[in-house]
């Protein structure tokens, strides 16, 4: 197991390094100029470039950037436009996004699993139908459309929830965004759980376990869920990652000061703030890779066959 984990960690670190390199080079070779050329003399531009280290060869710039990154700062660490330091702003935004994201993963997995299990146990009855309807809705309604509806009906028509995100009552005001973010996960997880459960419950070993006298929750826990969970983990992995993209729009709609809206501001405004794009790009990729890594390891824990396969191979 530890060999498997070590190999995966090494591979992830290497991937992250390559991604940072590609991002860095792409942003450096980009056409255009970070300075307002018409208002600066040629000498001043040269001086500024030297100050920021832009006159050095690109590989040396990259080495400088990496060493700064490893010490915990993002390059020279300021926004190109207002000179404000990136790090505190970015981490404040990341914190908001992270909380909403975690909440929606919780919603997605618990409601999805619950709905799927209940549907599988009541196959063909009302709850099964409800599960089908929810999974169809989740697939064909984008999360932000659902968010718009929730906001219109439950914050505007019936002013129960705050109309915009309110950091002072964090949990209460994150219910709507997390719920709409998790709509797609709920539907996918529910449908998958239901189908897997039904397949496992019809298998020979579950029949044997029943014949031995196991029943009810104990049977579910020891035989059905453990085997049904394996494929479900693979479905959850990409969903967790998709949250970041979905969160971007939800944050815009609900006025959450999050990392997604920070990225949108950095790219959709009049000018592009390269430092922000680079810093956020690195953070997003690192998070993505970390999540993938964690899920891979989790997968190995749930299914011993994977560990064995890599040990032999």
């Amino acid at each position, binding site marked *: 197991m530890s060999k498997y984990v070590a190999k995966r960690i090494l591979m992830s670190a290497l991937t992250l390094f390559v*991604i940072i390199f590609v991002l860095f080079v792409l942003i450096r070779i980009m*056409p255009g100029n970070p300075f307002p050329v018409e208002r600066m003399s040629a000498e001043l531009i040269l001086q500024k470039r030297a100050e920021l280290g832009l006159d050095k060869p690109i590989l040396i710039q990259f080495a400088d950037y990496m060493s700064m990154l490893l010490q915990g700062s993002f390059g020279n660490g300021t926004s190109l436009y207002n000179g404000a330091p990136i790090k505190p702003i970015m981490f404040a935004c990341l914190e908001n996004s992270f909380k909403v994201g975690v909440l929606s993963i919780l919603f997605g997995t618990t409601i999805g699993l619950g709905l799927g299990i209940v549907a599988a146990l009541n196959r063909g009855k009302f709850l099964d139908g409800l599960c089908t309807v929810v999974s169809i809705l989740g*697939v064909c309604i984008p999360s*932000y*459309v659902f968010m*718009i509806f929730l906001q219109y009906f439950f914050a*505007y028509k019936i002013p129960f929830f705050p109309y915009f995100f309110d950091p002072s009552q964090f949990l209460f005001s994150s219910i709507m965004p997390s719920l709409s973010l998790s709509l797609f996960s709920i539907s996918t997880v529910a449908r998958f759980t239901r189908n897997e459960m039904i397949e496992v419950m019809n298998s020979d070993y579950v029949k044997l376990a029943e014949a031995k006298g196991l029943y009810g929750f104990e049977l579910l826990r020891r035989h059905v869920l453990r085997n049904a969970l394996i494929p479900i983990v693979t479905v959850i992995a990409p969903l967790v990652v998709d949250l970041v*993209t979905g969160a971007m729009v939800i944050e*815009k709609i609900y006025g959450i000061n999050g990392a997604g809206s920070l990225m949108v501001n950095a790219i959709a405004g009049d000018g592009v703030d390269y430092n922000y794009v680079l810093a956020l790009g690195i953070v997003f990729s690192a998070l993505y890779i970390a999540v993938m890594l964690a899920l891979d390891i989790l997968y190995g824990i749930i299914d011993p066959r994977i560990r064995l396969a890599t040990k032999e191979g």
Partner: protein
Amino acid sequence: MAKTYIPKADDFEFIGSRDLNVDLNFASQGYWKGVAVHFLRNRLAVTGVVIVGVIILFAIFAPILSSYGYQEIVSVNDTGKELVAKSLPPQIADGSAQNLFADKTFLFGTDDMGRDLWTRTWHGARISLIIAFVAIFIDMLIGTSYGLISGYFGGLVDNILQRFIEIAGSIPTLVIISILAIFMEKGIGLVISSLLLTEWIGMSKIARAECLKLKEREYVLASRTLGAGSFHIIFKQILPNTIGPIITQVMFSIPVAIFTEAFLSFVGVGIVLPQCSLGSLIEAGFGNITILPYQILPPITVLAFLMLGFNLIGDGFREALAPKLEDM
């Protein structure tokens, strides 16, 4: 020196086909015929085809047949509702037809500039569909070739190509879009490029898996024994047998593409005015949702039905290609 043998007409002889026993009770059925029968028997899949078909028809014909253009600003005169001014800049238009609720003249009402929402919705659906089809078609070409080549050659080639995919797949979509937004101008090109860079990976994984299965088959061996080149085998012999799973993947990718477009336009890096797409219409409607909630309904409904339709078709294809015993 050996002479090249020139085949003659009587080298091979046909056996009298009349004497052959043809099993009529269990007549063999062509692969695609079987798939079509299964697909058409699936009521949900047929519903999906109808939904998508109707929307495509409307997207093609509704803007053509409409009396207003998608970017024309309409004014209303005293005698009734008719088009007075065409394509006026907003500051000149008198605003008499702004924010009208749906009626016989304007089936979906008008927007805050005085443009006909019926025309704009279907024009937007058209743009969204074109983006999705173009992007996914190119993705299919790239992804399939990449996957087939990677799977067929195996070894070092496969290793390199797969490591590349692993890295490319680890870059979050959001980051790819941001980088593109720096290099490119906002608009259709940006949306299509970001779809090109993200969607081909899934396609290539499926093509590779299929290729790994197929390349061990006897017919490939036979072809190779007869002296066929690698690329002939890949594209003439293996490719036709991978089409089923690839089409299924395409059907699931199209709604993703439509969704991505809608999301990019909503955020503000997609379609730019006066052009419109479903995403930009939803964005415009969202701006007025508390006062004029009817403006957001048409694009959202069309979007939801498109996603539903394509997903149903995709499910239908998947079941028709690999029918389970219980469905037969």
